[in-house]
């Protein structure tokens, strides 16, 4: 919950608000418009201005509304305090006026934007904008008084001390001029004005101090006069609300010397009249100004009056002097103690808190499954052991005793390896390296290592005997021998040099081929290579070219006769087995020229008929199917006429 309202944004006066928003509109919207522009542009220009101004106002108003606290959401103490200080209804009405102005301005903006949509000329649009802004300005000007009031409230709220209603609080109250402020000044560092006249303190003041490492706040209240609450003024009501709403220890201050101008009777009477407010609170009565008059020196009847106060249950009476700072700290400490115990009591009293904890706890109570007793096992040796007693001279010797005997801690170090349980006691103090040659010794620790090693060695021996490692490739041995011989060494070197040379040549060649260098490139299938060059190439690659040579000699020997050429041109298979490279038709494709004709006679008849058919057409120079023909780009019948169904490309 918010306790202080120090950062409410400031509320400008209505005139300032107008200036701020209109100035902003002028700065942040475009300013140049000409009658020659498109009417839509002109309308948009002015609509933007109207909307922008309305948004500016709405933003400012919502800042104001959200900045101020909702008086109903506050703690009851703050609510009542604000009510007395600022008059709750006035406060609410002011904020409501701002909120209503916001909706009104939004409405105006909406209306005029709608009218601007029908604007016909620049002048008309401008006039409409002017009217809209004027109406907004009128609405804002009507907020003059609420703004002034809210600004004052803001300043006052900001200067109000932040009082936490739930923390540990000492509340100082009493008649005016009895020394409340001087007490606060004594126990805290608060800068409170202390003056020798009534109602120096006109509002609540807060100071803080520490007691038992706990933070306490002490609140100084204005003085109260003994009269009905209806007649009390705002100053007194503040203290009444503080007493009523704050969970605190109330310190009721009294002035026995009557220097404050109020008699002891009046002070006692006030105590009794505000007593109902002290319910559920710890109360202390402090007799102030003991430097002037001590309570013991009072007359009998006044002592009697004071007794009526102390007779009230739960009230403790103490005396102090703020001027001499006598007994002040004791009063404070006593009040704090009282408050702390009261708070703890209150906490315990509330069953909700206890139940909250209880609900979270479950104590499991296991049930016995049978009657068998299952006691804890304690070895006999332990049971029979004598109980260790440091005083006993015959007590057990501990390692500590041993250490003390040998010179104490720092001089003698006990041997931790002493109690090791090993097979051989001699091993106890052996040095056991944990890491050897950068390896963890334990990783390599194997009990059967010797046996494993022996098994491996035996296997190796066996394999060797069986000839597992003997090489099974005798030829290699021969080659190796040959190399070793050194006779062919020269030859091999030559070959290697040749290979390197060839490789280099190939690389250069391919590089040359790849480098385009702005040359026209012959397509690969157009490049012609002579038979010789191919043969040579094959030979150079190491292929056997004897078969190629044979073929060439055969083909070169046989010349094509004229008949062969003619027949080839006609597409008829020649009788002789020519080696002419002809394209083979696919199997499925039929020879339509000769299809369905059994012999040459039929064939010639068919040709004759076709010729007769063509003759007339050729004579008339008509178009035939062999003629080149281009179809129309947009055939008329497909692209014109009524279409009741579908679109053009669906027909």
């Amino acid at each position, binding site marked *: 919950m918010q306790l202080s309202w120090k950062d409410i944004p400031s509320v400008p006066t209505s005139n300032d608000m107008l200036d701020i928003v209109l100035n902003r509109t002028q700065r942040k919207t475009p300013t140049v418009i000409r009658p020659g522009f498109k009417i839509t542009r002109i309308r948009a220009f002015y609509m933007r201005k109207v909307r922008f101004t309305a948004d500016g106002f709405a933003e400012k108003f919502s800042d104001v509304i959200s900045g101020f606290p909702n008086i109903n959401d506050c703690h009851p103490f703050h609510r009542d305090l604000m009510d007395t200080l600022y008059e709750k209804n006035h406060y609410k009405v002011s904020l409501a006026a701002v909120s209503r102005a916001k909706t009104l301005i939004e409405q105006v903006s909406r209306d005029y934007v709608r009218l601007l949509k029908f604007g*016909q000329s620049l002048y008309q649009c401008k006039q409409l904008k002017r009217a809209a802004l004027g109406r907004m300005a009128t609405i804002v000007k009507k907020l003059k008084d609420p703004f002034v009031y809210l600004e004052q409230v803001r300043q006052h709220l900001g200067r*109000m001390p932040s009082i936490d209603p739930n923390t540990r609080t000492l509340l100082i109250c009493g008649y005016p001029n009895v020394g409340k402020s001087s007490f606060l000044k004594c126990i805290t560092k608060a800068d409170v*004005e202390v003056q020798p006249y009534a109602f120096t303190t006109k509002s609540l003041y807060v100071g803080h101090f520490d007691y038992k490492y706990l933070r306490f706040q002490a609140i100084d209240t204005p003085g109260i006069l003994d009269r009905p609450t209806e007649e009390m003024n705002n100053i007194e009501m503040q203290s009444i609300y503080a007493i009523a709403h704050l969970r605190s220890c109330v310190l009721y201050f009294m002035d026995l010397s009557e220097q404050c101008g109020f008699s002891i009777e009046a002070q006692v009477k006030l105590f009794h009249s505000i007593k109902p407010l002290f319910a559920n609170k710890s109360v202390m009565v402090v007799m102030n100004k003991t430097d002037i008059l001590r309570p013991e020196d009072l007359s009998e009847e006044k002592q009697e009056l004071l007794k009526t106060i102390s007779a009230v249950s739960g009230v403790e009476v103490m005396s102090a002097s703020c001027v001499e700072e006598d007994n002040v700290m004791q009063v404070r400490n006593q009040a704090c103690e009282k408050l702390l115990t009261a708070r703890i009591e209150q906490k315990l009293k509330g069953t909700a808190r206890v139940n909250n904890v209880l609900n979270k706890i479950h104590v499991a109570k296991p049930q016995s499954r049978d009657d068998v007793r299952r006691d804890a096992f304690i070895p006999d040796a332990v049971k029979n052991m004598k109980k260790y007693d440091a005083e006993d001279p015959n007590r057990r010797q501990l390692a500590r005793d041993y250490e003390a005997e040998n010179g104490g801690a720092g001089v003698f170090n006990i041997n931790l390896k002493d109690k090791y349980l090993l097979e051989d006691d001699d091993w106890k103090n052996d040095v056991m390296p944990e890491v050897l040659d950068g390896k963890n010794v334990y990783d390599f620790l194997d009990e059967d290592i010797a046996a494993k090693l022996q098994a491996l060695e035996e296997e190796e021996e066996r394999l060797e005997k069986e000839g597992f490692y003997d090489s099974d490739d005798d030829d290699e041995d021969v080659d190796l021998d040959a190399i070793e011989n050194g006779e062919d060494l020269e030859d091999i070197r030559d070959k290697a040099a040749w290979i390197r040379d060839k490789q280099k040549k190939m690389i250069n060649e391919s590089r040359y081929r790849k480098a385009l260098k702005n040359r026209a490139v012959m397509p690969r299938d157009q490049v012609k290579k002579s038979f010789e060059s191919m043969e040579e190439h094959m030979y150079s690659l190491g292929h056997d070219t004897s078969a190629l040579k044979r073929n060439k000699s055969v083909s070169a020997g046989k010349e094509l006769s004229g008949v062969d050429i003619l027949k080839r041109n006609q597409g008829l298979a020649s009788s002789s087995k020519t080696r002419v490279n002809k394209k083979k038709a696919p199997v499925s494709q039929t020879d339509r020229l000769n299809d369905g004709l059994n012999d040459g006679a039929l064939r010639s008849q068919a040709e004759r008929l076709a010729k007769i058919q063509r003759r007339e057409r050729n004579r008339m120079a008509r178009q035939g199917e062999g003629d080149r023909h281009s179809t129309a780009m947009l055939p008329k019948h497909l692209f014109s006429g009524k279409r009741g169904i579908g679109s053009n490309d669906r027909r």
Partner: protein
Amino acid sequence: MPQNEYIEQHIKQHGKRLDHEERQRKKQAREGHRVAKDAQNLTGWRAKQFNKKRYAEKVAMKKKIKAHQESKLNGPSTPKQDDGEALPTYLLDRQTNNTAKAISSSIKQKRLEKADKFSVPIPKVRGVSEEEMFKVIKTGKKNHKSWKRMITKHTFVGEGFTRRPVKMERIIRPAALRQKKANVTHPELGVTVFLPILGVKKNPQSPMYTQLGVLTKGTIIEVNVSELGLVTAGGKVVWGKYAQITNEPDRDGCVNAVLLV
């Protein structure tokens, strides 16, 4: 931490600067110089604001001075007493009209009265062309028909009006430009009330506009004055009364009218 009236408290405890009063006085004295400087140097929006404020101040001051001087001139005015002396003839002639003049003036008066019956606060209006009044709306699938019109001025549309079918509706009165109420001023009482319009009596531009209920400057409208509580000579409450529109509604977005009494 400071709380409550800490500023006043500080002043109370420590006082003001020793030269506080002096500084205040000097600042006050320099105020005129500052204003003069501002008047010369300010530009733009701030200059506008400054000049407006200064103008208002000057007007207020001049009025005050004038009022003061007049009160001085008149002084404690004493009523002139008729001392019983005879007036010169040329002054006598002024006082008493001769009969001819009396007759002519009475005729004029009668004519005026007759005319007064039909006189209105705004006797002349600016003509509004059809182009200005109607906006052509293109219709048809290809937007090539232009028989439809939209009224660009504010209109009054009676209650219970329903638009005709789209194909029949030649003239559109846009819903956004319809007005139901007018700010009516009573010229004698000097009050302005927001009254509902009952109908358009006469639009001076054209009888067609009257029929369509177009509201332009000078249009006579009938308003519901039952709120005003006017009473006829017979003691009946007046319900409807005529008023003349005094502004261009399409410029202000509202209708202002003056009651014809």
